[in-house]
């Protein structure tokens, strides 16, 4: 019986041992499952957060996509505007070039008109010179005033510093100094016709201009002779106008001066002759 009891007790202990071991295993399994659940919860929480983050990201992507679409649209609009601006720029460049060419043409025209104006003004000036000279010579019947006018014309319109006016003697053999300016009159008081350049001008009736190739010897006092103009009336020489030094700023005779000399050749002779006639008429 004791033996039976012992066997039974061993069995009970064995069962108890197994039960305890099983219970321990269940507890351990339970613990493991609890830990697993906790881990799963953590994972779930993280997953939830990740899902939330993904959703937020997704919303952001949607916004970005919308913005991208808007940007694309804006970009297309700007591309069109840029193209239009490029076209406008090209058109402006063409217009600018056209205006520049037009301006060049206007500038060239302006230069041309200015040159024409200066030429006309010069021509006008020349005509005014001739008019004034002619008008002044015939303004008076007083011999001294005519001589004074001749001096003024030469000084103011030609630019002479030294001059002399000779009048032909009644017999046509000598020239007598009638008026002078800037020269020593003593050596020019009388000049025989045909002697020296002044005398030859009186003899031939041909004007002399320095540097024009006229030949012949100079008489004393003629070294600085610039021009010598015969004063002629009806083809006859009645006197000679001698121009010596010009003013320092006057570099030489100009075409206008020669025209003025031509005018003086006839008009001065006529004016001087008129004064003589007037004087005679008054005496009579």
């Amino acid at each position: 019986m004791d033996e039976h009891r012992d066997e039974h007790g061993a069995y009970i202990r064995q069962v108890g041992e197994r039960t305890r071991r099983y219970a321990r295993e269940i507890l351990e399994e339970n613990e493991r499952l609890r830990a697993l659940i906790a881990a799963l919860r953590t994972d779930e929480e993280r997953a939830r957060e990740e899902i939330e983050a993904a959703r937020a990201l997704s919303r952001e992507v949607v916004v970005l996509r919308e913005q991208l679409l808007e940007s694309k649209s804006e970009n297309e609009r700007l591309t069109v505007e840029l193209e239009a601006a490029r076209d406008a720029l090209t058109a402006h460049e063409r217009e600018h070039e056209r205006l520049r060419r037009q301006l060049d043409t206007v500038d060239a025209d302006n230069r041309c008109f200015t040159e024409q104006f200066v030429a006309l003004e010069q021509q006008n000036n020349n005509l005014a010179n001739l008019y004034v000279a002619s008008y002044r010579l015939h303004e008076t019947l007083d011999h001294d005033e005519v001589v004074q006018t001749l001096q003024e014309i030469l000084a103011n319109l030609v630019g002479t510093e030294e001059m002399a006016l000779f009048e032909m003697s009644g017999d046509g053999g000598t020239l007598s100094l009638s008026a002078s300016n800037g020269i020593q009159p003593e050596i020019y008081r009388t000049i025989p016709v045909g002697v020296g350049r002044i005398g030859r001008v009186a003899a031939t009736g041909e004007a002399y201009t320095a540097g024009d190739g006229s030949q012949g010897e100079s008489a004393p006092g003629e070294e600085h002779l610039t021009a010598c103009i015969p004063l002629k009336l009806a083809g006859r020489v009645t006197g000679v106008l001698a121009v010596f030094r010009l003013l320092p700023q006057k570099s030489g005779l100009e075409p206008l001066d020669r025209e003025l000399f031509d005018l003086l050749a006839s008009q001065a002779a006529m004016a001087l002759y008129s004064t003589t006639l007037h004087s005679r008429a008054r005496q009579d």
Partner: protein
Amino acid sequence: MPKKRILVVDDSRTATMMASMILGKGAYEILTAVDGEEGVRKAHDEKPDLIMLDVMMPKMDGYEACRRLRGEPETQAIPIIMMTTRGESEFMERGYASGCTDYVTKPINSVELLAKVKNCIGD
């Protein structure tokens, strides 16, 4: 608009006539005087916009006339262009020292004269 007035002072009638022809055809009215004294008097009475003054004149030369014009309050601001046969620098310096605004030499070049007048008083 009234024409601007220019007083031409020169004892040579040829010179004043020439200056009048050059300037008078445009927008300017020309007054004349035959010597420095008359020039100063007319400048004082008429108050022209510009005075053109010859240098060598009887009674009072251009330098003295210029100094007197500059010395009077009524005429001291009027531009003065001196005109002379002498183009050497010492004469020009003397002209500027007496108070002239500008200087032209004879024979007068119309283009140069018109440019100087325009520069002084405009069209």
